[in-house]
Structures are given as structure tokens and as C-alpha cells.
């Protein structure tokens, strides 16, 4: 308890002052600051929301061993899977599991839900047997994105997209765009401009920039904006601390550029679909998320973002809906395949002669995986094992790191870490990702140890 009134009052005034300072330092005033040094790297983070069944995709199992009951022609809608081929021998009577998908040259075995992403095996770094140590959606989601479990119900650390935006993207117009991704911003040492822009959809962002022409003319709004810029600059000239007023001046000038300019087109779902026609926007489950990938490409092409993070799902199939798990994964992996191909076809905005794919780094995670057994409802429940997928020019492609055991699908000890032999965990994956860009993981993370073997 506080008992000293004078001290309370001083602190009270300090807080009032700090609230003002927070306002002045916030992106409201600084989002449109002039161009800085920045970087040439871009980041895409995808959360497979709900907990994916890795036995169908990145950690495939087609044998009945121990606890494991694989996907079969009886428990999966296999007809929708383009890579499904019945295994050579029947599993049980007329029930067949699948044949492992492994394109020529691939060291990575895939399940039948991998879709077109198998074509890009040489770019993929698969991390299997992740010790997620949770079967709770909120906890696993936050753990995968931050490397820290929830502290009670509270997010205790900054998410990876915010970390990268803070390191490399504060000068971008949109340092971190987060579309239903579990982004978090924790701590006072981060640049406030790196605060992720949390939105429900790209379209909802676009609505904010729509201006009716029914009442006033664009010239009217431009004149008001120009006058307000003058007001802000005059107030800045008279102020003891002009930063907030100067920020307003920059903001007014730049907001005008956003409205009606290329940024507005970037936030229009229909225009995104036209700009990136290769995605299957009509796909049954994941078509609705494909505009997020299209947005990522277009925003990176214009050098307006540093990080785009979005969720796709839901893969939470506890019951009869498990039959669709394969199709859902296939549609998601196809989105990622199209994303890779589009990045290959897109020139880098600042590095002449380079492709975007040479400087774009993609991380796909889920909160956990699904049980090796099929439950009485025909579905699979939550299971404390995980898989991450990294597609980055700085990571070794065509590589599987870590493993789950053959009978229980639980994480196996992978290597000797400084705290002993153990399986790799989400903090290690995030720490390795940070280290790939020369960032000291300890700047952001309490746990996690870089695994240099995963890097080129």
C-alpha cells in the first residue's frame, strides 16, 4: 500500500505526464516518419489455427504402430487429396492407408495432404517433434508465436512478427500487419512503431480508407489536410516539445497519399485477387485466407510492410469433421506453394535484380498436433507434439530437423542443448530464426537456444 501522500502525488503527476508522452511517442504521430535505413528482408508468419494433424502432412504416418492409427480410406475424405495413393498393402480388410509422398530428390517424407508444396521440397525446412508441452489452444498459440507459455491468461512475451518488425521494420508504413495472428507487443524497450496492426481482414482495413464523393470533393479534403498540416507545423514551432505536432504534420501529409493511392488498392480484396490471380480464392476452406497471402506479396512489392502474419484454419477437428482435415491442409499448403511461386515471379522493391523470394522468410506454425489415435467420434483431439515449417533462403532446405517417436508421436530428444539432451521446442525455433538475421534472441526471449545446424 502507498501511504505517503506527497510521493503519491508526484507519481500521479508522473503518470499523467507519461500518458502524454506515450501519446506523443505512439505511431499515431510517428507512423509516417520519413524513410530510414531499413532492411531488404521480408517476413511472413502463418498460424495453422486449431492444431493440425501432422501425420497427414509434415510428419506422415501410414502404419498402425503403438498408439498410432493412421489416416485411411475409412476415416479421411481421401478423394479430395491429389497426392493420395493407397498404400501397397491393405491396413485392415479393404481399408488402406496412404503411400508416403516423396518427390525425386526430396529428403522430406510428406503425407498426402501436402498438395503442391511438395514441388518445393528443396526450400522447406521441417522441424518435427516440437515439445509444445500443452494441449490448450490459447497457450499453444501464444507459445508458438512468442516462445513463452501464457502466464495465467496473460501473454508474457513479444511475438516473432513484432520482434522482426521491431528489428527491421520500424520505418515501414506498416511494420507489422497481423490478420488474426496471435501477435503481441510486450515491453517498454520496443519501438512503438512496431506495434502490430491487428485486423480481422484486409478488407476491413480498406474500409477505413474509403471516402465518399457524394458530399465533398477530394479537393475539399485535400485543402483541409493542407491547412491542418500548416496548423501542426505552426504549433510545432511554438511548442517546447514539438515532436507530437511534427508527427501530426507528417501524418496529415501522408494520410492524403494513402487515400486514393496505391495503398488503398492494396487493401481492396477484389483488386488483390486481380493482382495475384494464381491463388485459389474459391477453395472451400482456405480460399477466404488467400487474399492475405496476396496482400503480403503486393505489400512487399511496394515495400510498405516488413512483416505480414495471418492465421488459416480451423484445423480443430475433434469429430466427424476430421474427414476434411486432409483437404484443409492441402488447401493451406497450396496457398503457400502459390505464395512461393508468386514471390519467385516478383522483383524485389529495393534490390535491383533480386527476386522477392530471395529475401522473404516464411514460418508456419500450429499450436500443437492431433492425437495419434482416432477418438470414438471419428476425430482426433489435442496432442502435445508439434511441427514447424520454415521456408527461408537462410535455412537449409530439403531438411527435416527433429523427430517424433514411432509409436507415440511424442517429441524425441534431438540434440545436446546447453541444458542437456532434449527435444527441440518452439522457443528454440524462434531463437534460431532470430539468430539467422543476427538478432540476439536474449533481447526478446527468456528461453530458446539457436540451432545453427538448421541454418545455411
Amino acid at each position, binding site marked *: 500500500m502507498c501511504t505517503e501522500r506527497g510521493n503519491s502525488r508526484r507519481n500521479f503527476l508522473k503518470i499523467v505526464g507519461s500518458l502524454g508522452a506515450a501519446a506523443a511517442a505512439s505511431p499515431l504521430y510517428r*507512423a509516417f516518419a520519413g524513410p530510414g535505413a531499413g532492411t531488404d528482408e521480408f517476413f511472413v508468419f502463418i498460424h495453422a489455427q486449431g492444431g493440425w494433424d501432422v501425420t497427414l502432412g509434415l510428419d506422415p504416418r501410414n502404419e498402425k504402430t503403438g498408439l498410432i492409427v493412421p489416416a485411411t480410406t475409412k476415416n479421411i475424405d481421401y478423394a479430395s487429396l491429389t497426392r493420395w495413393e493407397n498404400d501397397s498393402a491393405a491396413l485392415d480388410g479393404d481399408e488402406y492407408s496412404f503411400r508416403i509422398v516423396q518427390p525425386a530428390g526430396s529428403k522430406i517424407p510428406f503425407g498426402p495432404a501436402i498438395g503442391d508444396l511438395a514441388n518445393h521440397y528443396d526450400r522447406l525446412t521441417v522441424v518435427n517433434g516440437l515439445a509444445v508441452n500443452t494441449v490448450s489452444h490459447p497457450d499453444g498459440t501464444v507459445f508458438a508465436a512468442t516462445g513463452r507459455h501464457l502466464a495465467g491468461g496473460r501473454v508474457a512475451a513479444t511475438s516473432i512478427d513484432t520482434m522482426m518488425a521491431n528489428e527491421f521494420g520500424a520505418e515501414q508504413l506498416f511494420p507489422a500487419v497481423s490478420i488474426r495472428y496471435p501477435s503481441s507487443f510486450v515491453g517498454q524497450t520496443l519501438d512503438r512503431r512496431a506495434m502490430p496492426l491487428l485486423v480481422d481482414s484486409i478488407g476491413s482495413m480498406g474500409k*477505413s480508407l474509403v471516402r465518399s464523393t457524394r458530399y465533398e470533393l477530394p479537393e475539399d479534403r485535400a485543402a483541409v489536410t493542407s491547412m491542418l498540416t500548416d496548423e501542426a507545423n505552426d504549433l510545432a514551432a511554438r511548442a517546447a516539445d514539438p515532436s507530437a505536432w511534427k508527427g501530426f504534420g507528417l501524418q496529415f501529409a501522408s494520410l492524403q497519399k494513402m487515400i486514393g493511392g496505391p495503398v488503398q488498392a492494396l487493401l481492396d480484396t477484389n483488386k488483390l485477387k486481380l493482382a495475384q490471380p494464381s491463388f485459389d480464392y474459391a477453395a472451400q476452406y482456405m480460399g477466404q485466407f488467400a487474399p492475405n497471402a496476396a496482400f503480403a506479396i503486393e505489400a512487399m512489392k511496394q515495400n510498405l510492410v516488413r512483416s505480414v502474419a495471418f492465421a488459416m484454419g480451423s484445423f480443430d477437428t475433434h469429430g466427424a469433421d476430421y474427414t476434411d482435415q486432409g483437404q484443409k491442409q492441402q488447401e493451406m499448403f497450396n496457398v503457400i506453394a502459390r505464395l512461393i511461386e508468386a514471390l519467385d515471379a516478383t522483383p524485389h522493391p529495393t534490390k535491383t535484380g533480386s527476386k522477392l523470394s530471395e529475401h522473404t522468410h516464411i514460418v508456419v506454425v500450429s499450436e500443437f498436433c492431433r492425437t495419434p489415435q482416432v477418438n470414438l467420434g471419428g476425430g482426433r483431439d489435442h496432442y502435445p507434439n508439434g511441427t514447424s515449417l520454415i521456408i527461408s533462403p537462410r535455412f537449409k532446405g530439403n531438411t527435416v530437423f527433429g523427430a517424433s517417436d514411432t509409436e507415440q508421436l511424442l517429441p524425441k530428444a534431438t540434440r545436446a542443448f546447453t541444458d542437456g539432451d532434449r527435444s527441440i521446442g518452439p522457443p528454440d525455433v524462434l531463437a534460431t530464426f532470430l539468430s539467422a538475421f543476427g538478432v540476439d534472441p536474449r533481447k526478446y526471449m527468456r528461453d530458446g537456444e539457436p540451432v545453427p545446424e538448421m541454418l545455411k
Partner: protein
Amino acid sequence: MKRNFLAILLTAAGLTLGSGQIGCNHGGDSSSPPDPNAIPSVPVGALPGHDSLAQDDSHKEGPRLLPAEVYIRMYLDLFGGLSPLDAEAAARGTDGTLFDHWSDYLASLGLPDYEKDIARVGQTNAIMVATFERLGLALCDRAVERDLRAKTGSKKVVFAFDLTPAEPTDKEFADRFDVLHRTFLGYPAVMAETPRISRFLKIYRDTVARHVALKGGTSSFTPTEAGWAAVCHGLVRHPELHTY
């Protein structure tokens, strides 16, 4: 308005203090004599058995922006103390070109969206600024329709004055602008540190001239209405409105 906003700011800070989380100096006032019974502070790692325990070093407190609700409440108060649903209906009007639904802008305004599990935004950002501008423009335009087209003597909320029969003289404009300036920024326009009246007069005159040149073209506003709407836009977007 300025006083109201400061009161909100102070209340917010007061509530934070009242929670007992911030502002306590457990070491006592430096002017007080040391308490002989006080237990000295010891790092947790020095306590037996605590040296190997993980510590939660995550951030617990700190300066933060006022919640988006504070700004929204300010907008609702400015435009007649409307409820959020009434404000939505007023802003949408019959054509829906100026505003949609609050639910379309929850995340953009920084509010949590529990249905979609989107957390509250702790800092403002570019889209939030653009969204508040869209809301402000909508409320201004609807206020023009309501107040400036109302019969003389009827209750007016924002444009609480009668229009002159002809285009206002500079003095007549200044008198009416002062009403708006006090409403939005909380003090007389003549006390502004910038050439505010002349700047807004120019905005008004230029806007009227543009709309006269349209000759009833594409705008639903008369030139006079468009002029006053532009003045309202300038005030609802004014930096002083957002910082006081």
C-alpha cells in the same frame, strides 16, 4: 471540451493509481527518517532455494495510450451525446456511403473483437487514424444535414447558429466559427496560437467557390453546406482535438 478531456485523462491515471499497481515507493520518502524495523531489500536470487527458479521478467506496467473508448466517447459527446447505436445510425444515414457498422471497424479503432478473438490494440496506428477520420467526416456531414437544414429556432447540436441570408461577411463567419471552435477545441478561436480564423475562413470561402463552380453537379451539399462541412472536418481532425 478541453477540460473534459483533461478530466478523463486524470481520471484514467487516478484509477490506475487507485489500483495500487503504480506509484508506490516502498522504500519510503527520502525525507523521512529510516525505519529501524524495515527489512532490507534482497535480490530474489539471493534467497535460499530461489537462485535456480525462473523469474517472470515480463513487463507489468507502464505508460499506455488511453483506450479507444475515450476517443469514441469524445466523438459521441461532440455530436450530441448519442449512444453508439444512434451514432452508427446517424453516420450511416439512408445512403450508407459515409459509414457502415461499428463492427466493421472494431479492430481498426483498436477495440477488442471477442467474436473473432482479436485483442485490444494498445497503441494507435495509421489505420486507426484513418478510421477516426472517416468517423469524424461522417458525423460532420450528418450534422450539416441535420443542423443547417433545420428550421430557424429549432435545436441544433453542432452548428448551433443560424446561417446568414447571404454569404457571411468575415465578421459573421468569425462569430459562427467561434461557436464551433469552442465546441470542438474548448476555447475561443481568438485565443488560438495560430492564424486559425483566417485559415478556416479561407477553407470556407475556397470550398464554397469550388461548389459554386460545380453548379449543383455531383455534391449533395449546397455550396454553403459544403463550406461549413469543410470547417467541421478541419476541427474534428485538428491536432489539438487529439492531444487535449
